[in-house]
């Protein structure tokens, strides 16, 4: 008996789900329905629809750049431009290419030999450190929790912890900031900002946002009172360190003082003091690159997932990790809840595990991981398929609702979670599905939603949907 059988049924063919108010699952017609008929709680939320004409230009993907090289240029110019844009090795391979370099035979031969030597070194390096094999965007796309990261119109979203303000990274690598009170949108873009993988607002600050991108971390200061829609890059600080690229995840500590950045190709995770622009690496043997890190709500612990089965839980006082091993595959998603409980899921496995530290029992601190939820793929009576390996997981900050996004199926499942005496119980809440062929790209819970929880979903069409789950105290009692 799967947990999915006890969910309320999906809305009919012309209907879609809008919200859930006190256990009532509100659905209405796709074309005529309006969420304001059910609730006013998101009346002031910015209406966002990311469409193609919003982009200023489309970035060329790295695979096909060579197709666009202008054949009319002379050889030297071509080589230098490739060197400037893509690096020395690419320039060498261009010079060695007999199709491009017809003029200078000597250069071609020298270049091909140099390339052979360079390749020997790279092979040796990859033999020693196999996790470095992928280059920039490939690493990000491999480890991203966003479905189809390289082509999705919305790459990632982040809610401000204290204000109704949301930041989106769009496919053209601009970061757009939408705010509930003002109608204009700030667009953040600078030259260094490419292949944005993650966003994080600084807690206890109205203006600072960290953007994880290929070169490193960019910390923008966006003055909320300023009317500029395109802040200049003088408002940005680029934090980078050799070997720490591409950044696959950034996250601020809940106290707002430290920033942790992770890179899928770097075995150390960096703890930044942003104003001093200094970083301290945290490194331990084994495990490969650190893919992402999550701060616990009380800022006392950090969960760090590596690209192998190993994951670590760091203590933020002593900065000593506790090492864990997942059973089959690397950890793909994790989220902290109240009382330092952590839920995580491994790649290509339809099970959610909970890791609880059971506190001091007989003077010894013990913690254990146990499965709490099985979401094996099943077919619903309506014919839709739901469940399967987990792609992304979000838990709202009160620890009441858990949203799951799946790798192979396109319906988001929301669960109610209750924590009683260190025991976590999970019960069904509702499904959310897209309109027509939409598939969910990424999602997040709003952090300052006082009426309950507001799940925000970025669909593959570029539509941003707010799905409020409202409960009133009277109803509970």
């Amino acid at each position, binding site marked *: 008996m799967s947990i999915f059988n006890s969910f309320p049924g999906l809305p009919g063919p012309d209907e879609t789900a809008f919200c859930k108010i006190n256990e009532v699952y509100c659905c209405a017609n796709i074309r005529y329905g309006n969420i304001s008929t059910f609730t006013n709680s998101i009346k002031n939320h910015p209406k966002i629809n990311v469409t193609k004409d919003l982009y200023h230009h489309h970035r060329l993907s790295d695979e096909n750049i060579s197709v666009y090289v202008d054949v009319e240029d002379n050889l030297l110019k071509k080589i230098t431009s490739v060197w400037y844009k893509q690096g020395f090795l690419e320039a060498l391979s261009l010079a060695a290419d007999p199709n491009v370099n017809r003029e200078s035979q000597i250069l071609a031969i020298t270049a091909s030999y140099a390339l052979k030597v360079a390749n020997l070194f790279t092979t040796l390096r990859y033999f020693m450190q196999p996790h470095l094999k992928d280059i920039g965007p490939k690493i990000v796309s491999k480890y991203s929790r966003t479905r189809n990261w390289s082509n999705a119109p919305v790459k990632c979203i982040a809610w401000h912890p204290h*204000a109704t303000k949301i930041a989106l990274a769009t496919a053209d690598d601009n970061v757009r900031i939408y705010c509930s009170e003002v109608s204009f949108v700030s667009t953040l873009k600078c030259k260094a900002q490419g292949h944005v993988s993650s966003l994080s607002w600084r807690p206890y600050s109205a203006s600072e946002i960290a953007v994880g991108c290929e070169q490193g971390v960019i910390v923008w200061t966006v003055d909320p009172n300023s009317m500029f829609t395109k802040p200049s890059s003088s408002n940005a600080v680029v934090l980078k360190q050799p070997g720490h690229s591409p950044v696959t995840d950034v996250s601020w500590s809940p106290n707002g003082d430290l920033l942790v950045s992770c890179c899928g190709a770097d075995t150390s995770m960096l703890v930044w003091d942003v104003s001093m622009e200094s970083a301290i690496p945290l490194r331990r043997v084994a495990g490969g690159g650190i893919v992402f890190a999550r701060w616990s709500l009380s800022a006392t612990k950090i969960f760090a997932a590596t690209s192998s089965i190993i994951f670590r839980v760091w203590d933020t006082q002593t*900065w000593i990790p506790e090492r864990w091993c997942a059973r089959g595959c690397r950890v793909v998603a994790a989220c902290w809840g109240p009382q330092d409980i952590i839920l995580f899921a491994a790649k290509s496995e339809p099970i959610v595990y909970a890791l609880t530290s059971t506190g001091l029992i007989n003077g010894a601190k013990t913690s254990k991981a146990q499965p709490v939820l099985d979401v094996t793929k099943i077919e619903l009576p309506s014919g839709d398929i739901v469940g399967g390996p987990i792609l992304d997981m979000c838990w709202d900050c009160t620890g009441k609702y858990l949203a799951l996004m799946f790798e192979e199926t396109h319906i988001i499942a929301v669960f109610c979670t209750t924590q009683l005496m260190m025991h976590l119980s999970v019960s069904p809440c509702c499904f959310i599905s897209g309109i027509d062929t939409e598939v969910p790209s990424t999602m997040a819970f709003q952090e300052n939603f006082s009426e309950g929880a507001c799940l925000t979903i970025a669909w593959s069409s570029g539509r941003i949907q707010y799905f409020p789950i409202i409960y009133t105290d009277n109803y509970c009692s």
Partner: protein
Amino acid sequence: METKSEIFSQRLIKAVLWNICLQTALAILLVFIIQVDLIHPLTWISSTFNDIASWKMSLNIVLLGLVSFFQAYIYGSYYSMPIPKYFSRFSMFLNLFSVQNIVFSTLYALNGYFTMSLYSSLAKSNYNVLKKKCENYDGQCLSEQSLFLQFAGMWMGLYYFTSAHLFGAAVLTFPHIYQEKFQQIKLVISNIISMGFQHSVTPVLYYCIFYYVWGNKPRSVVSDVYSLYLEDPPLDNIINLISSGIWIGLWFYTSLFFVSIYTMKTVFNIVLTEPMKFPIESEKQMTLYDALSQRSQFTGYLGAIDLKHLSMVDPVRRSQIFTLSQPGGHPRNWNNLLEKCLLIIKEFNKELDSVNGDTNSVDDIHHRKGLSKVPLTPPSSYSGALRNMAQSPNLLELKEHKSYKLETTFAATAKEEFNNFLQKLCQKPGINYFFGEMVNTKLKFIFIQAQPVMWTCEGLSYIVSASLKEDKYGIVQNDLPLVLSTLVNLKQNLDKLSKPGIVPRKHILNDVLAIKIRSALLSSVKRSLYRIVITFSKFIHEIPLDPDVQIALQPFLICKEA
């Protein structure tokens, strides 16, 4: 040295021991590498062991210990004293020739000399003796290469002293996270070695130029004194210098010297900056507010950083702050702590004010603050979550009024006149250049010492925001207006510095470290205000605040403060 506190000297001794261990390890590694013999690995290892166990090695370790104690002395006396304030060019120039600097430079020169000879003797080269047997004559000849190297040792010591101490204020920077000591050393050791080899290139070049120009003088002096013959081609000739190959040795030993000095510095930083827990109440040990009251001294730093840790992650000691003293029922712990914290922030504020130029308003603000301890409108009722201790009548107010009586005696007037005269004299262009205060430098000094202020603000804000849930008696909320107004004041002062247009051009900071610390300080003050305001957002209108402060807090309340 005698003013140093016990904590500091204990740590210094610990650092010396660590340093000796680490340096010995490096020395053994060096011996091991120098005797490399891949064809006969057994002889290689056995000869290394023989060398390590020999009496020469233990002599070297004693030498190493001596060097290490030199360094500890320098470091100790450097950090235990408050940073001297020299704001005019003249006083800075005079400071170059202070007794302390002369002693330091001698010590550094000796240090360089010993380190050089230590490593060269470890490497089994015979550069430690100035004499050698002549090949062509009968008698003693001068080994100029030894002279060259020994002079180089002193030169490097002096070079390091000049670059690190004279032209750069060495401040103890506390890392933002503190890992285990061993981990920290592991992380930096490769960096230290590569840095040592890179940084030694410039002083070696300088030294070669120096020797090219002046080298013949020490050579003739030494050969005269010891009545030695000169046999080898002189080294103050570029071709001879290069062909002799001594420059490779020089670069190698200089790099080792830099590696050893960087190692020492790192070890000292790691040991000295280790966070420490101070008790809240104690008869024997130093308490947190004792530590805090030693502002700008080493213990003050430790106290401030401990305050931040305590307020963030230590509920046990936090609850001690929120308790009342047993006989009497006064919130003594909190009052002591608050007094010390506010003092740190206010002192800093005063310094900023003096730079901002409105010295008159300082007294005004302080005066008003004394008054505003009594809320203007006594709060009639508090809602459930916000508690308050009974508003006791404040006697402090009366005392402060008394101290504001102006004493106009003749001596005071004369002094004031004299000061005015001096100030006027200082305005004259030429004199101003040498004797005038440089605001840049002053700001730099202020900011370089601002780290404890940062931690104090944050610590205070954590305690205050924790008090909403943990403070049973409402001790802290009684002083909420005071904390808020102090923080707002500091924020406004910092804003005045960074906003263009208000501050004249000459105030612009040009020191990278100071600029970074300024932005760090501003950001931590804002974060502290946000933390308090967000925590108390529901009750903010019930807190009796000055209208000015209330206006200043508005943007924080609606999350619009950049």
